[in-house]
């Protein structure tokens, strides 16, 4: 964390993380005023549960975006659905199968991400194209495996871990998210791998010359994105008990938006995961407020889009060109 003490109030407010936190407070107060009970503890717990799902996908997305070279992962939705499907079928409602199901799913999704990373790194296919292609392959593979029929159910214990209150009334999924947050923030700031991610995201050539294993690091960020998508799939399965084929699709673009709202630049090399966590909460809060408002779906959608553009206007602006 940087030290805010030296900065003036203005620069503090202009920082993405501050904006996200202020947005969270404004949305909470606004929601409470619009419909009393919105900011009640129960609602906040429900909110954090949904935000945790988005937040965990966004962890992988964040790494890919930080790694630069137009990094973006459009395959997360497909990988989440795949992970959830695989987990459900390996568990078959039996608690005894949880551990090997989790290990296999995380391993498989890590490998999928690795294939993406190899394509991006060694064939130098632009990430947007490579991940879009992988999305098609994963979705096609999912249809082949499921034969179009959803199957597999969560083990009861998984549902309990995810949804039941553990400490302070917060469900397990929130603690898993916090754990992901602490680990990832530590990895990004304190480990060689984390610093390498920033290095290749800022200037790949300079990183290469400085001895950073550019290729290995880049493959790794994509593999980890697969891993986090797989983890989200497992959590989603625990949350909803069984999942349909397109369950993960809804996370693709929101995961990118959470990262951007959280202050990570799409150009790569700057930002962090704490901001992304705040970004995920902002997005879910916004959606919740719009759901509680008594307006038709199209109105919600329009307000959501306009608010998103407004947020971009606050701090998503790009450098002015200079002559």
């Amino acid at each position, binding site marked *: 964390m940087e030290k805010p003490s030296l900065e003036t109030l203005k620069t503090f407010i202009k920082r993405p993380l501050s904006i996200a936190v202020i947005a969270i407070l404004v949305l909470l107060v606004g929601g409470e005023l619009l419909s009393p009970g919105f900011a009640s503890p129960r609602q906040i717990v429900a909110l954090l549960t949904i935000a945790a799902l988005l937040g965990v996908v966004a962890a992988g997305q964040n790494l890919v975006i930080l790694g630069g070279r137009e990094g973006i992962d459009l395959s997360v939705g497909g990988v989440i659905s795949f992970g959830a499907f695989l987990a459900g079928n390996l568990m078959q409602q039996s608690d005894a199968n949880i551990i090997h199901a989790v290990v296999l799913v995380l391993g498989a999704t890590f490998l999928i991400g690795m294939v993406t990373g190899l394509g991006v790194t060694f064939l130098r296919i632009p990430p947007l194209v490579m991940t879009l292609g992988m999305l098609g392959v994963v979705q096609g593979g999912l249809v082949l495996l499921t034969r179009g029929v959803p199957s597999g159910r969560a083990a009861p214990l998984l549902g309990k871990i995810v949804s039941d209150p553990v400490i302070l009334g917060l469900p397990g999924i929130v603690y898993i998210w916090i754990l992901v947050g602490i680990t990832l923030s530590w990895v990004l700031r304190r480990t060689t791998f984390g610093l390498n991610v920033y290095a290749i995201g800022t200037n790949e050539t300079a990183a290469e010359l400085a001895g950073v294993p550019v290729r290995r690091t880049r493959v790794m960020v994509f593999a980890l994105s697969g891993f986090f998508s797989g983890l989200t799939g497992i959590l989603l399965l625990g949350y909803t008990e069984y999942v349909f084929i397109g369950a993960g699709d809804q996370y693709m673009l929101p995961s990118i938006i959470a990262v951007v709202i959280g202050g990570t630049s799409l150009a790569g090399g700057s930002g962090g995961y704490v901001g992304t966590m705040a970004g995920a909460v902002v997005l879910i809060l916004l959606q919740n407020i719009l759901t509680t408002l008594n307006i038709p779906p199209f109105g919600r959608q329009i307000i959501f889009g306009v608010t998103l553009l407004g947020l971009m206007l606050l701090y998503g602006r*790009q450098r002015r060109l200079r002559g």
Partner: protein
Amino acid sequence: MKSADMRQPVSGRSGWSRQRHPYLMAALVFVVLCVVNAALQQTFLRYEVAISNVAAFLPMALLAVGQTYVILAADIDLSTGAIVSVVNVAVVTIIESMGGTGASMALGLAAGLLLGITCGAINGFCVAVLRLQPIVTTFGTGIVFAGFALWILPQAGRQVPPVIYLTYAGTVLGVPSVIWILAGAIAFAAFVGRTRFYKALRATGGNIQAAYQTGLPVARVRMGAFVISGFFAALAGLALVGETASGDPLIGGALTLPSITAVVLGGTALSGCVGGVAGSILGAFILGLISNVIFFAQLPFEWQGLVQGLIILLALAGGVVMARGKQG
């Protein structure tokens, strides 16, 4: 979407470089797919079948053409599918609520095109003037446009007078309407390709800083690209009115990402500057032909998605890698 390496168009002896023929790979894949398709489907080369294929691939081709201009400027437009939807429902609603008269049809079509241009201008304003990041911004505007589509027509339905879909499926002056539309798009691209705007567009995509310092009106050029993209999305929306004869607020949503795939398959680089419209039309046809081949290969249903995904991934990877090989 800016890459560090600047791919300035080089003039030189190597006439077969990617700069000169960015869509060579696409043309090859296209021919191969045509041969495979003809082998699997006996009627493939028949006139009516060919025309119906063109009609089926046309909306995607139009979207890809518009997207090409945006991508040449190194931006991206994720709202095109939503523009298709909103234009589609707006046109159908205007025509039906005005009684389906000739005047209503003229007004409906004109309003549809104007709506597409307006949506494009909004995108361009946000990206080029307000300097917002294009991916997230056009995703946001896309949500708004899709919201308006649902507002205009919450559920698929309504009908247009038969004359619209009969004209769309029929011929004008002995030539099928869909061919006229495609030829119109190609003529438009050929015209734009000769303008100073197009040169400025590619310069902007190649190196925006340098383009700005040279005194090019960078903001206006990027804005122009988004307006063209909106216009072509509107055309695609109109084509879908002709094809389905009704309105559907969700019709465009699934078209956005495939249209970008089509552009890339056609040899246009996401980093800007390199590529062209002809490749994107080929790319859209390639996507359509892949679906055709898989259908006529009589693969079991559950294999189709995977095989399609793998072919597209291979074609994308092959195109990118081969292009680089030629670049040296």
